[in-house]
């Protein structure tokens, strides 16, 4: 098949499953995004745009959303995509006997519990108003963007394929193996752990893709640049060029490079329950960190120092919060707070990332400068989380992808959370977020989040370090890529073209 336009996109890790909602992996979500469709998608600037939904309306009470679907959307087996498919998908996902690890994305919809599971058979309040109209009833009035962003990874599956199947059949991978979808590409073949290949969906309602064949390959991050340089790869679908390689990438003639600011952030976790890590001590330590060196040393400048989880790209960013660095003052504060001399802090980090290791090494040095001893302990990620939840650590490093919606960071700072690594026992911070979330407009929400950011610095439950830019590169022959959106799980691959 000469003259075929083949595009190869690299990912640095493999997807884990083909079941759209039964994963916590963004790699899987990219795969699903080619095969299936979702109602809306979120762009890097926070704007929300329709996918399967041509448009949507929010009712006045702001507790129901009605989507109008594209009428020319068809499944790859020729059946039309209708509101019934949407209803069926949500009903199926909310069925607790169906495995769906990310079911919590349904949590705002009426008729399900906090985990997103239905209260009774098909109690989820998603209803088809007509063939192409579907209404979501929400539990309570809320800021609609929060809801829309939350369901933007819920993929719509064909009712006619799954109807009448038992939960057991649905949980088995066989049904998902040769997917019928409505997305821009059609599943063709897979080499598990190495690649998945797709052919274009001629009938895609947003326009036939320009490329004939899409290959998603798993490439270890150390090899991505090699592949791009010698033309084996066309673009980085998800993941980044190694910081060490950035200069080399930029100097390649055949590559376009872009450094995209993102919402992802890296944070130092303090165990707030340790008696020697009082708020003053934490503030002092936070102040002892030389974030500029971190950004320049680790990220070669491709990032921004931060004090809060809200990145400068976010509309909620509070530019009044200043990055603090004052080792002298930190020393004084430590002395004042009576930080026990000779106390060595246990610093947990995960293994396998040289950036994390280097970051930890630099922080250790910063703390040593103010007279605090730190001992690093490295473990794999699963162990790290489990031990931090048990509160064995003094310090830890965690990275997060972040979202444009500031409430994302709430998961790490309220007492019952399964990610409460800083062991916070009070709800002062999360209350502020809840208050903000209760408001229905951006303008009303903003002040709460501004205050939240100031409180974050004061409370110093975590020492937010930096946000790092997405360092991406693609072949010059690739056209119409919006790499900025890639970080929002959003390729818009049907628009891609290759010369």
């Amino acid at each position, binding site marked *: 098949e000469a003259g075929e336009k*083949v595009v190869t996109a690299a990912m640095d890790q493999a997807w884990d499953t083909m079941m759209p909602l039964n994963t916590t992996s963004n790699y899987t979500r990219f795969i699903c995004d080619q095969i299936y469709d979702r109602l809306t998608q979120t762009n890097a600037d926070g704007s929300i745009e329709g996918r399967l939904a041509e448009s949507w309306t929010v009712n006045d009470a702001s507790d129901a959303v009605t989507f109008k679907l594209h009428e020319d959307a068809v499944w790859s087996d020729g059946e039309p995509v209708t509101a019934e498919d949407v209803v069926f998908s949500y009903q199926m996902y909310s069925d607790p006997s169906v495995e769906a690890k990310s079911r*919590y994305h349904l949590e705002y919809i009426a008729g399900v519990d906090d985990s997103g599971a239905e209260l009774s058979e098909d109690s989820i309040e998603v209803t088809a108003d007509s063939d192409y109209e579907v209404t979501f009833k929400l539990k309570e009035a809320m800021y609609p963007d929060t809801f829309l962003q939350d369901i933007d990874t819920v993929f719509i599956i064909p009712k006619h394929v799954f109807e009448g199947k038992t939960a057991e059949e649905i949980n088995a991978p066989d049904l998902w193996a040769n997917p019928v979808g409505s997305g821009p590409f059609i599943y063709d073949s897979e*080499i598990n752990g190495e*690649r998945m290949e797709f052919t274009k969906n001629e009938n895609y309602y947003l326009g036939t893709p320009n490329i004939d064949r899409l290959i998603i*390959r798993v490439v270890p991050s150390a*090899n991505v640049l090699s592949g791009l340089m010698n033309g*084996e790869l066309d673009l980085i679908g998800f993941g980044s060029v190694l910081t060490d390689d950035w200069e080399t990438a930029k100097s390649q003639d055949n590559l376009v490079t872009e450094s995209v600011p993102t919402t992802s952030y890296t944070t130092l976790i303090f165990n707030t329950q340790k008696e020697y890590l009082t708020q003053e001590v934490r503030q002092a330590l936070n102040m002892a960190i030389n974030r500029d060196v971190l950004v320049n040393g680790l990220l070669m400048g491709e990032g921004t120092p931060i004090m809060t989880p809200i990145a400068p790209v976010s509309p909620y960013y509070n530019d009044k919060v200043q990055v603090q660095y004052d080792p002298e003052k930190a020393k004084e504060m430590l002395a004042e707070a009576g930080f026990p001399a000779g106390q060595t802090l246990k610093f947990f980090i995960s293994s396998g990332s040289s950036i994390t290791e280097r970051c930890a090494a630099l922080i250790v040095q910063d703390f040593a400068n103010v007279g605090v001893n730190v001992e690093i302990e490295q473990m794999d*990620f699963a162990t790290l989380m489990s031990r931090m939840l048990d509160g064995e650590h003094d310090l830890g490093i965690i990275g997060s992808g972040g979202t444009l919606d500031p409430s994302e960071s709430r998961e790490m700072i309220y007492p*019952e959370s*399964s990610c409460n690594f800083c062991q916070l026992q009070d709800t002062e911070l999360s209350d502020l977020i809840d208050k903000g979330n209760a408001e229905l407009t951006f303008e009303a929400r903003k002040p709460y989040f501004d205050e939240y950011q100031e409180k974050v610095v004061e409370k110093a439950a975590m020492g937010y370090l930096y946000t790092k830019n997405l360092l991406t590169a693609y072949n010059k022959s690739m056209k119409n890529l919006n790499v900025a959106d890639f970080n929002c799980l959003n390729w818009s691959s049907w628009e891609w073209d290759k010369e």
Partner: protein
Amino acid sequence: MKWKYILKRILIAIPTFFGITILAYFILNMAPGSPLDALLADPGITPAELERKRVALGLDQPVIIQYFTWLKQLLTGNLGFSYSTQRPVAAMILERLPATAILAASSIVLSLIVSIPLGIFAASRPNSGRDYFSGGLSMLMMATPNFFVGLVFIYLFAIVFNILPSGGMYSSSGAHTFGDLMKHMILPCLVLSFQQIGGWVRHMRSSMLEVMQDDYIRTAKSKGLTKWKVIMKHALKNALTPVVTVVGMSIPSIVGGAVVTEQVFGWPGIGSLMVTAINGRDYPVIMGITVMIAAAVLIANILTDVAYGILDPRISYK
């Protein structure tokens, strides 16, 4: 006679096999992380959901019970389901097996093709230039860490010379031909073979030197055979017997080397599955792979014995 012998070897291998499963299972369960911890990576997950999973996966049971549940499954030919993908472990392994098998097999073949002649070459004139050459070469090969050779090769062959792909199994364009696969396998295979070649050359050499001292070599010479005929017809077969053992015993380390090599080259085999599974605490997958590797090693051991028997007629006689 021979079949009985093989059957006997299989019977001996069975307790070893179960020993391995027990060892693996309990070591795994000593690990501080639990399969549920991997789910924590998604901040949205709720404690209720976690608890439901725990019960669903049987993790609320004591380890011993879990082991026997697992063992019962195993005996019915079921390796269980992956915690992370819900797919049958057997299917996942089978999917990855060919990649590792072809890589390991070609590495063994390559290592043999290189090391046997090189060993003979070295032994044919001990303490000569050729001996020092192959000795030095094999030492060097043994002294370099796999992963590092891999990185250097990628840099050299994929970037500087740009003649070989940097990783993966197939090129992007065109059909998945065998030739394409071979081209992608050259580097990983080479890297994986480094350690073996180094070791085997030395074994081959010393085994050959030893055999060349034997009386029957002198007999063969006294019959008027030329040096190379003596080596090829009389010495080689005898020299190979100890090497066969070494080759058989190298299987675990080849599999181990494959873990690293697959990581470096993005080769979709058992090794990379293993690393993913260890990181994700996907016990059924880890156990499945362990069982599979153990079975493969035990089979390889039996094959070694059989090969031994073929090479040395005295064995099968007993």
